[in-house]
């Protein structure tokens, strides 16, 4: 970062916690506000108890186009002047800090809970209260013909729980408010207090459709702190697995979106083809989602040459089978007219709110960790960043289509040129007093695992920021002015993670 207030960091390179600048909270807020002019966005902003009565806030920020990451911190008491009065993008993070740490940021009114749980990261001396399930107050729009529609937590289909509160005028949505937290399981405390294997298994179960993404990010942080030698073969296999995960989800999502506009042939074909990708992960790792594969130090399973040949044949067949189905889907006028212009995310909102991943790339904001903060095999094999511009359901479908094509090419290329060596190397003890930012381009977008160790090398804080944490507000905004009957389609075009958000 060009500003001296932030310490420059690189993806998966540790810094000493003592070198992270400690600013006054007003100065931190000022720095963030000033930097927002060049599309700086928050990667993560979170609290960790510093003393029994002080909370350290750590801010990790990014300038994607410059490939720059920076970190700064501030020490606060329970009541402190809110950062989001000056930098609104920090709002969601301050809600999280209030809830996780029991802090009370001032100047922004009563904060609504994000996940509805008691604080579990507060300084031990703080007297903390928390807002439970029954105390969440929904906003409403007043007017004679305005009605309220409540959906969830249990939804019509087989899907994760969340609550959507619409303010509608006839068919038109005036506002949508989303209350999550139903999938909260206490992930971060488990990551911080478990032994290494269990912490890895928790990372695998953080979001079941992003096993590879989250586990790779978590292991990336641990490996950096352990100064573990990298295994090129392991990194290549991780890349192959991550792209297979991306393929499974993008293909499945296009099928689900086809289903929502009643284009059943494509939905049937694509559901089967999604299974082909999961079966490839199962061939490699024994599990359809790749559980068991990613471990600290590399990958626990190798891809021997005969398996590599089989993988290539199956991926080539998938590519050949997908092409006509995708043409069928995208060429259908009925599909285009349903997808077109629905659920628009504007690029200026994307910059203001810090949206990431697929959602950003669909409105011409080319954020992609594999390109901007390249790590692992992506330092050697560049995947062109897929973009669309309209920010609507069609754009999010088009970006998926492009990424499917590119991920297939990447998998074929990597599987036929695996580096020599063992896929798994040793990963020893962690360095003490350090901080590392580990970013991964999960299939939805940027996954951030920020890990801080104490002086003894134990994990003091393991913060997870899933891409859905950034992007859920995008869905709420995108529904405004749309027909309520387009909600399932719009929701599926984002396909955000409830579990990834709720932890």
């Amino acid at each position: 970062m060009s500003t001296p207030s932030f310490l420059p960091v690189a993806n998966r390179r540790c810094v000493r916690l003592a070198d992270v600048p400690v600013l006054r909270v007003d100065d931190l807020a000022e720095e963030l506000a000033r930097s927002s002019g060049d599309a700086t966005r928050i990667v993560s902003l979170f609290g960790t108890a510093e003393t029994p009565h002080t909370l350290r806030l750590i801010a990790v920020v990014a300038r994607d186009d410059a490939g720059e990451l920076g970190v700064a911190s501030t020490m606060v008491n329970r009541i402190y002047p809110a950062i989001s009065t000056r930098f609104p993008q920090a709002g969601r993070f301050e809600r999280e800090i209030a809830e996780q740490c029991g802090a009370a940021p001032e100047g922004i009114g009563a904060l609504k809970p994000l996940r509805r749980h008691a604080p579990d990261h507060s300084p031990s001396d703080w007297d903390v209260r928390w807002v439970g399930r029954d105390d969440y107050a929904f906003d409403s729009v007043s007017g004679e013909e305005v009605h309220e529609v409540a959906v969830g937590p249990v939804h019509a289909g087989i899907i994760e729980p969340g609550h959507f509160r619409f303010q509608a005028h006839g068919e038109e949505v005036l506002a949508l408010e989303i209350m999550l937290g139903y999938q909260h399981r206490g992930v971060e405390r488990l990551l911080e207090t478990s032994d290494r294997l269990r912490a890895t298994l928790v990372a695998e179960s953080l979001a079941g459709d992003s096993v590879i993404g989250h586990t790779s990010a978590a292991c990336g942080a641990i490996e950096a702190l352990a100064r573990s030698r990298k295994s090129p073969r392991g990194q290549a296999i991780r890349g192959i697995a991550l792209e297979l995960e991306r393929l499974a989800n993008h293909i499945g999502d296009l099928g689900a979106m086809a289903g929502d506009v009643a284009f059943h042939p494509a939905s049937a074909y694509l559901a089967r083809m999604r299974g082909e990708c999961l079966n490839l992960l199962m061939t490699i790792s024994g599990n359809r989602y790749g559980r068991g594969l990613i471990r600290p130090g590399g990958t626990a399973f190798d891809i021997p040459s005969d398996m590599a040949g089989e993988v290539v044949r199956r991926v080539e067949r998938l590519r050949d089978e997908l092409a006509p189905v995708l043409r069928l889907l995208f060429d259908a006028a009925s599909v285009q007219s349903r997808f077109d212009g629905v659920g628009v995310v504007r690029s200026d909102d994307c910059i203001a709110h810090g949206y990431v991943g697929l959602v950003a790339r669909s409105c011409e904001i080319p954020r992609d960790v594999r390109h901007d903060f390249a790590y692992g095999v992506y330092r050697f094999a560049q995947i062109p960043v897929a973009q669309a511009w309209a920010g609507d359901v069609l754009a999010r479908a088009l970006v998926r289509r492009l990424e499917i094509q590119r991920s297939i090419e990447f998998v074929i290329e990597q599987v036929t040129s695996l580096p020599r060596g063992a896929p798994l190397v040793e990963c020893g003890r962690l360095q003490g007093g350090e901080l590392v930012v580990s970013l991964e381009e999960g299939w939805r977008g940027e996954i951030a695992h920020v890990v801080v160790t104490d002086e003894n090398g134990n994990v003091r804080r393991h913060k997870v920021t899933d891409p859905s944490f950034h992007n859920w507000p995008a869905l709420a905004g995108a529904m405004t002015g749309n027909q309520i009957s387009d909600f399932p389609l719009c929701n599926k075009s984002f396909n955000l993670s409830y579990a990834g958000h709720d932890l």
Partner: protein
Amino acid sequence: MPVDDAELPERFRGQLTFSRGATEGGRRLPVIDLGASVFAPEEASEGRVFTRDYRMAVSQRDALATDTGEIELASALDARMRSLLGRSLRLRSVAAGSCAGCEAELTALGNVVFDMARFGIQFVASPRHADGVVISGVVNANMRDALEKTYEAVPDPKVVIAVGACAISGGVFHDSAQVVGIPDSIPVDLWIPGCPPHPLTILDGLLRLLGRIE
């Protein structure tokens, strides 16, 4: 469906059992609890191995714990229930503090490969239309009420199916402060282990419940 016909790959982790030689000599062994297992490769150590047998669904929770490696697979509902639900089973899915992995495999059951609809099994959009509830996830404080209301809203007679390690035992989250577990007021008829269970494991369990497989 014969086990061999499934053509599951070599590395597939099905039932965890004792390796040959580990059960000889009448030695007392630590019990394998498939309900607590997350089927991680590391669990195959100290005399334990994974087989490729995907059939693991049972009718009682304690049938998942074994000190011989053998488990008694699920039995069918009684004759009255079979006559009501045997050819038409409508299920309501409740994810109650999950990672969404089990839900993805439940969704896969509806695709052209597994096609549970050919057995008369389908998922419905309301508990009022359902014959039973499929529970996934640990059941946390935030979902406990919604789960209980959903269960109460399903008309009698009804069945309850617990899918996945989290629903059965809390899985990898088992001692987290957030975990409440399936309340005692909700009796479970079928327990399907896995993390997540393969769609064939789920389907095999459902078909045993309906008496379509012995």
